């Protein structure tokens, strides 16, 4: 049987990806904010608890 992706609605596929993409994007954004601190001048002590990196 040959199959193609033509029958599944593109909107449904987009929605499926958005449902996982939005929380992942939020997590990446929050980590990005943390990462920026590395390139800021060393002046203030830390106030944010460090999360363990994904092993």
């Amino acid at each position: 049987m040959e199959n193609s992706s033509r029958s599944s609605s593109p909107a449904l596929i987009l929605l499926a990806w958005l449902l996982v993409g939005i929380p992942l994007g939020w997590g990446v954004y929050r980590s990005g904010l943390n990462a920026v601190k590395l390139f800021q001048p060393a002046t203030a002590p830390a106030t944010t608890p460090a999360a363990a990196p994904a092993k």
Partner: protein
Amino acid sequence: MSSFLDRDRSVAKPGFSRWLVPPAALAIHLSIGQVYAFSVFKNPLLALHGADGSVWSLKEVGYIFSIAIAVLGLSAAIFGAWLEKVGPRRAMVYAAICFGLGFEIASFGAANHSLVLIYLGYGVVGGIGLGLGYISPVSTLIKWFPDRPGLATGLAIMGFGGGALIGAPLGNELMTHFKAHGFANPIPATWITMGVLYFLFMLYGAFTIRVPAADWKPAGWVPSATHRALISSHNVSVQQAWKTPQFWLLWIVLCTNVTAGIGILEQAAPMIQDFFKGHVLAAAATGFVGLLSLFNMAGRFLWASVSDWLGRKVTYFIFFTIGPVLFFVMPFLGSNHANSVPLFVTVACIALTFYGGGFATIPAYLKDLFGGYNVSAIHGRLLTAWSTAGIVGPLIVNGILDHYKAAGLNRLDGYRLVLHIMVGLLCVGFVANLLVKPVDERHWLKEVPAGEPTGAAH
């Protein structure tokens, strides 16, 4: 309800897009990846006391995470063959139940100041959910993407890295929220909420997942006529696979690669502060940890996808040739030598992409060698290498650094020793990868047993 979970009920109807399958797998991996953000609960847990008033030590609280990872490897190894029979949907639903229930039991433990209940809930019950969830989408993805197995499994396993990026801020935000609403101990409410949220999110994955029909193949795709020695057109059963030298060589490959990564991850924040004393403070070290997480996640997708073009052996060849060089030079980039923060960070981040890539490329390597028939089960057994590395890695790192501290020696020399031991381990991995040859014909499955789902070997 039970029939809905059957493999037969999850076979995709004609016209179902295979691009709906990776989000289903991602929903599972983004959820269970929370385990690597467990450290956000360490300090709040340390502030709790046992029911008898005793203080919980860092070591005792650390066992929660260790139990969860150990049970992950064990349950993946034990339930892998069962998963192949019942299909991904049932396994995903059970994973959702276990992972969600684990949080609820643990919340009861936190409310009643019982560490044993937290071990049982988050560690054991949740750990079973981790193992089932980790391997459940692997063979399904490989069957949907016979043309790009690395990309497909890389997407899912990238989710495990991404799960920590979500789990850490989610845990922190929820604890802040509940504390602001009068909860003196915000952990139980946070865990109840997270248990429900992750349960629902994992169910979304379970209900979206579909397995392809037995004779399905991507439109217009024909298996490559070019013979590649390490891509088998035959299947090997899980019972046979772990009797082959190839299985144990890949076990060493995964174990050494993961142990080396732990050499950086275990002490990332204090290490960069020690290497650049006075220049990198705690906030910047947190940023370093965040950056490592991002590169770890990116490496999972990048390298697994690239392995579809390069081949798995070449991909690991890259990890095990460039990796040792990076680990070797890292101690010489600190303030007492080259004194370059950007160079140190760049080297560590590249090394972390190899670490993530090693996790994500291994399912496709297994599929190449053993075929798609039992790949989830074989992958499950291989994950015992991860459990081993999870014990050995921290033992090496913490053991050496504790010794240097106790003996009053220079901590920087301790880091150098740790990183150079990792160079040796990566060299062992290099040799193991080099020794991988096609699986001998006598291990091939002659025919798929009656009633068993057929898996594409292509």
